């Protein structure tokens, strides 16, 4: 191994090990390095997720599946919206994007959902108990979060 290559390989080894160790002990996330914190915090008795509904003429239809959102997963939406809600302009642009994504996904054949007039979001709370699960209980509390009605002809 030449001297230059020896230095290059040692730099690679030191970088991967050094930065990985830094992320582990500083509990830092710097993709693709990570401290892999999935499921590390003990779950409480309650669990919540954002739930999406499309507003039709006379009812609501559940849209909590990534197939409706053309390139975004429901997890992405769940995480992005609370992070940007303090910026009204950006928040409206994001909701407008979700409208576009819904119809783009339908056009692409990813789903055959109805024509919707708007989107409504609720935070859904579950009790993490076996009793409720066995009875196939839905969430025990549905808390209204956001609603976005599409502009006419938009």
């Amino acid at each position, binding site marked *: 191994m030449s001297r230059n290559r020896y230095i290059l390989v040692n730099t*690679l*080894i030191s970088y991967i090990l050094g930065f990985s160790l830094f992320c*582990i002990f500083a509990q830092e996330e710097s*993709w693709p390095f990570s401290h892999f914190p999935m499921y*590390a915090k003990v*779950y409480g008795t309650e669990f919540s997720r954002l739930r999406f509904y499309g507003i039709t003429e006379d009812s609501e239809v559940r849209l909590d599946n990534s197939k409706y959102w053309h390139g975004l997963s429901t997890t992405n939406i769940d995480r*992005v919206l609370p*992070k*940007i809600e303090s910026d009204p302009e950006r928040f409206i642009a994001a909701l407008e994007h979700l409208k576009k994504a819904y119809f783009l996904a339908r056009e692409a054949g990813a789903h055959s959902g109805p024509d919707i007039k708007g989107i409504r979001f609720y935070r859904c709370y579950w009790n993490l108990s076996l009793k409720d699960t066995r009875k196939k209980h839905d969430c025990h509390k549905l808390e209204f979060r956001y609603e976005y009605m599409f502009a006419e002809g938009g």
Partner: protein
Amino acid sequence: MASNISQIWNSFWYEPNASLASSPLRLGISRAVAVSIILWNHIGTNFESMGTIDPSMYIPIGLFSGLGLSIPSSTTLSVLTLIWKLSLVSFCLGFKTRLSGAIAFTLSLYLLGLVNCFGKVFHRDNATPFVLLVLAMSNCGTRFSLDSLIARRKGESLSQSNPTEYIWPFRLLWAYFGLVFFAAGYAKISASGMQWIVSEHMSRVLISHSLNWGTTPNELGLFIASSPMLCMFFAAGTILLETASPLVLVSVWARRLIPLGIFSMFMGFEVLLGFSLHGFYPLFTFFVPWDIIYSKGLKVANEII
């Protein structure tokens, strides 16, 4: 003192020993298998639709904000996806190995990184860029590759006499494997301590998967969730395996048992939680003695013929 450290370092990363003999063949087959898995994981992945996402939803990870990268157009993404997949095929076959490896690594960092720029950092593909980077920088194309076949036809040999070139890639990927799973175990202990094992956490994780996503493919998860002893057993086993994973660097037995244990744990996630951590599967290939399997396979094939 400094020369002692340097000696230990060199002996650890570069010197062949009984447990890892210098083997260009083993590295070549490991490359082909690991890259095949990456290709299989992403054969149907479509990055193109990310090009339609509004910038209002873009929350770049450090790598992207540091480089000032924004969301590219759908056309750019579909072209990059095509180049990425072609480079993976070429790298897997060992054709223009160094170049195809470099392209595969760079585009994996970009395309798989972009997925994490919309509010949530997913961990399923963290290992992919590392595997591709280490392989691209190694001499993994000197055996079991089209490059070596082409060279042989020309009467040349690509294999280097320097055995050190075939040791460090394995050691580095074993070290990365050990750090990844140690990190997961350490995060659990530092965030929750013994509560992670003795509380109802494991049971609640299993319940949350069946409640919210409905992805649990059978009732086995709920059966385990109903037994505090089983939950404690699996939780303790998880922490033990994860925190012990750096032992793969120093013990032959650990290299046999820990990857097998963690692979079984991954299978458990698929069955109990209904999700796959397929992005980590390429790492397991570097623990398999492919050269021995290949030689034995060849011997059996010759006997049959």
